[in-house]
């Protein structure tokens, strides 16, 4: 690698983007026990909508809003049949949805560029006359601003009575409905929001990479996101971000190992196999992940909550 710093920054950017997706899955699975195994589909929708819209010369803000909306609508429509049923049916529907979406992308060349995809997607923020390295920094600032906003949004949701209902649905749907909660409505809302956030992440991804193609959205992406949530700790938003960093780091390292250990293995195969083994190991020995769920919630007004969040993160960094 010519410039290790650039490689590192690239990894940081990826981790940030996937951190956003991770938070959305955490909302769906960690808090509401929705088995969304089709995460990559909504990520892809967001990326493609942005790519198509940028080709039509719309500004990024419009593209991303449309991406969020499209992902959300598709999320709701496709999950409706399965949300009334048990989580395994949702899982099956979502996994197969991803495949069907890729089919559409590969075949409708007039819209999506088919197997060649769309390239030349401009970055969201264009500052003329800066170096490549500085452009990367700008991207990272953008991504992490969005990540922080998503984190705060999700924290506000889960640390509210709404969040309490989600957790109740997760623990025991029958109790939730016995005590007056319309379980179906909540599941649909969470799915809509989770898909929307994934779409946003996809949007950022498209403008960061500059191209989209169907081969960037394999089911292994969904699997990695699940790894992030499970490893970091389900029902802990900080854990979801931590998981994103760890999995991204793990996957990059496993690809790099080849350069240093001279194994006769294809780096991608190695990465996937090791990720799979890691997931299985975590599910076996520590399914609750690294960071635990907070059981005693805080009840503070908004500004104090935001401030305390920053203090929390600061302390955590200091302690480790």
């Amino acid at each position, binding site marked *: 690698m010519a410039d290790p710093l650039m490689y590192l920054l690239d990894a940081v950017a990826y981790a940030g983007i996937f951190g956003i997706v991770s938070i959305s899955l955490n909302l769906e*699975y960690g808090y509401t*026990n929705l*088995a969304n*195994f089709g995460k990559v589909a909504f990520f892809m929708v967001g990326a493609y909508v942005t790519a198509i819209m940028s080709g039509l010369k719309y500004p990024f803000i419009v593209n991303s809003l449309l991406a969020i909306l499209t992902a959300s609508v598709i999320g709701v429509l*496709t999950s409706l*049949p*399965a949300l009334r*049923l*048990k*989580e*395994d*049916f949702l*899982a*099956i*529907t979502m*996994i*197969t*949805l991803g*495949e*069907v979406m890729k*089919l559409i992308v*590969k*075949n409708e060349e007039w819209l999506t560029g088919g197997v060649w995809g769309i390239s030349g997607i401009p970055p969201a923020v264009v500052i003329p006359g800066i170096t490549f390295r500085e452009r990367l920094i700008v991207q990272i600032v953008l991504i992490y601003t969005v990540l922080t906003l998503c984190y705060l949004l999700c924290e506000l949701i889960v640390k509210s009575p709404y969040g309490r209902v989600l957790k109740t649905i997760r623990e025991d749907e029958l109790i939730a409905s016995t005590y007056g909660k319309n379980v179906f409505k909540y599941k649909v809302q969470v799915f809509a929001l989770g898909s929307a956030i994934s779409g946003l992440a996809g949007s950022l991804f498209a403008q960061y990479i500059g191209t989209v193609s169907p081969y960037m959205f394999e*089911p*292994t992406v969904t*699997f990695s996101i*699940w790894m992030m949530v*499970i490893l970091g700790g389900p029902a802990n938003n900080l854990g979801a971000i931590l998981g994103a960093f760890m999995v991204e780091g793990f996957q990059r390292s496993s690809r790099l190992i080849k350069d240093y250990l001279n194994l006769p*293995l*294809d780096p*991608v*195969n*190695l990465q*996937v*196999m090791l*990720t*799979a*083994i890691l*997931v*299985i190991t975590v*599910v*076996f020995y520590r*399914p609750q992940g690294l960071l635990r769920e907070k059981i005693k919630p805080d009840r503070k007004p908004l500004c104090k909550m935001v401030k305390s969040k920053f203090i929390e993160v600061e302390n955590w960094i200091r302690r480790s």
Partner: protein
Amino acid sequence: MINWLQVLMNSIIWGCMYMLATVGLSLSYGLSRFPNFAHAEYITFGAYMAFLFLVIFHLDIYLAVCLAVVLSALMGGLSYLLLFKPLKSRGASLVHLMVSSIGLGFLIRHFLMQVFGGGIQSFKIVWPTITIGPIVTTPLLLAILIVALVVAFMLHMMLTKTKLGKAIRAVADNPELAAASGIDLDKVSLFTWCLGAALAGFSGIFLAMRSSLVPLLGWKVLLQTFAITLLGGVGSFYGVLIASFILGLSENVGVVILTWLGLSADYRSAVAFIVLVATLILKPEGLIAVARRKA
């Protein structure tokens, strides 16, 4: 001018292949109470094993197929013994089981990719065409038909006449009651997992011989296997039987309609998706529940 008899023939052959591919999934799903997303990779695994014995070791074709099927059975049994049974005994949740099965699937697939390469392989067999009236077929397709019929017959016999078969049905119906009646859940599960994976491997060999051998062989029919499982009713062999042919017919007719509409034939999988979603909306318990209610 559409040769409807040929379409029917294709539907039947696809139905046979789907049946072999899906029986294992439905039975293991019904018994162990979770969908095994690695099942598609048993299909791929069987195909690659046959390739290994037939093309690389140059064994006799019947021997190669037998060995491949046996190894697939082993793969299924090991998945159950080493991964799913321990997880279940640790009280893993449904989601955990599903995630692990996805992981296992990736593990198998990428291991195969590592050993055999990620490209397209071929069995290098040229099948002569046989023309029966308006229908064109090959010995391979006829073999598929015969194997499927034999397997379906034997499974039916086993499930209704043998002790093991009755045990399988009992456990699928009510595991606690079955265990209380002295049935060894473990043995029944292990047998079902092995059998299911064996049949999946067999179907993989047929699939690969019919088209080509690629790492995504099994994954490409994942959607279909799940659509059939849900349509037929999870855990029901007879459900799979009916649903396989319904889907085979729908897909092939669907392809005719797609080409007539000027859409790509790749969308045949969308037919399976529509069947899946329709089942969830209309009758999530599957056709077998409809049949039982009428009985």
